[in-house]
């Protein structure tokens, strides 16, 4: 039962209050006004879908960001958290934050980006519980990969099968 107990703890960590909150009441879940970049993402195995909208200014700053989509608590919470964290940030910084996020999910490394605010870190870290649930990592990363597709204006949809 030792292992069963550990797993229960893992589950509680996976579905932290903050995730459940973002999952139930996602922020920026809409089509943002005057968006000028967008991309769709899809996780073919479970059917999770996300559509990211960005309004980017000449200085490559994300003035506004929003999403639409459907999926599990993890993927919706992750998209919601992402929009909160990346809004107002520059492209290059965004990419670094994304790297940090992916690395955290992969091997738990600490964030490299210094400018992240404490609450941003906390909300990103709330997703670190997926580390113990390998099949759920794709749920947590879908929105982020799709963001990159939007930024780079890739023609093909983001597809977690690939990444």
């Amino acid at each position, binding site marked *: *039962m*030792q*292992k*069963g*107990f550990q*797993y*229960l703890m893992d*589950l*509680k960590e*996976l*579905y932290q209050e903050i995730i*459940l909150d973002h999952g*139930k009441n996602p922020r920026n879940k809409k089509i943002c006004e005057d968006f000028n970049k967008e991309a769709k993402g899809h996780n073919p*195995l*479970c*059917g*999770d*879908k996300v559509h990211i909208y960005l309004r980017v200014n000449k200085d490559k700053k994300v003035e506004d960001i929003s999403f639409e989509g*459907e*999926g*599990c*608590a*993890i993927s*919706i919470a992750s998209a919601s958290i992402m929009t909160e964290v990346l809004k107002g940030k520059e492209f290059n910084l965004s990419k670094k934050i994304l790297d940090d996020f992916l690395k955290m999910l992969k091997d738990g490394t600490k964030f490299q980006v210094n400018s992240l605010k404490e609450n941003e870190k906390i909300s990103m870290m709330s997703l670190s519980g997926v580390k113990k*649930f390998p099949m*759920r990592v794709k*749920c947590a990363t879908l929105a982020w990969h799709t963001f990159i597709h939007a930024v780079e204006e890739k023609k093909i949809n983001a597809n977690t099968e690939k990444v």
Partner: protein
Amino acid sequence: MNIKSVKSQFPIFKKKINGNSLVYLDSANSSQKPKAVINRLSHFYENEFSNVGRSVHSLAVTATNRFEESRDIIKNFLNAKHREEIIFTKGATESINLVASSYGDKFMKEGDEIILTELEHHSNYVPWHYLRDKKKAVIKFARLNENLEIKTDEIKKLITNKTKMIALTHISNVTGGISPLEEIIDLANSKKIPVLIDGTQGAPHLKLDMQKIGCDFYVISCHKMYGPNGLGILYGKKKWLDLLPPYQGGGGMIDEVKKETITFAETPTKFEAGTMQTAEVVAMGEAVKFIESIGFKTILDHENQVLNYALEKLKKNNSIKLIGNPEKKASVLSFTIKGIHPHDIATILDEDGVAIRAGHHCCQILHEKIGVSATARASLGIYNDKDDIDVLDSSIKKCRKVFNI
């Protein structure tokens, strides 16, 4: 049926999942394997292994005999008329690709029509989609009724004199609904339209009789019926298999090869290009013996009891919505819980050792129809019992706790 003794024949149930006994409710995805099948594989590799049909030494003779004996076992199991009607493939998916390609190449032209249903697995749509692309053919989807059942009338409506194929599933891998094959095949026969039955979910749960069913093609995946991975069966009426061109080309399926021309062997050989899955074919013979040792009637009775028990129990749980309400139903139970995504359900259930599947189950057309992108699915095998359902039920209740709803 003594469920304990059946279950004990499956080694995997000795395993603990997160400290709990395994409650395997994902058999529609792939079934677990009995010891006899696993042992047959090992025994074959350890004592009898050789490529079949291509050498005259003793090992090859034994292997060839075992291979062809399996064909006979399966022929009898399906009550096919001829052993040449049994073709070994990689799986149900390849079987359907084979028919769509060979039949399509030979018999379809621009504007010809294929009738499918909204219940089909991608494997019974994508190959026809290729044909649509290639031949500028038309695919029509028979609509399901409110219970998500296939109704013969809906198929009848779509038939025209351009209809060249009707392809539908025997049992839905989402609703568990059993299709009215008899009616549909009678209808098709009367119009001389060939029928392909996707029997991937049918074969593990229903007693099959090809001569009685009367379909032109029937496809099976062995891994879903207690058999090995990587093996499928295509049953086809001999009259068709004689007419169809070969599918893949390679060793073993030829008659004579010259620089300018190639002639092909006859069925089933012409459809079995390259080195076959000898060990798997032999092990599949053992899987059929395993099924027959219990008996289909016993299996059906048992699975139906467990299914009905599950339906009763889950219907009492108000937070659950069952997907589809077919009158005739077997072994599959899909559902959603308001406010909790199926993926999250699956993760939480897994904590208690309950293995279910979440997603669109390769049926996006159906999911689009019902307006959800994913459902949770519990599906039964011969080894499940009412205790499994009790664990499922209490585990489902836990989901709401984790989600604080």
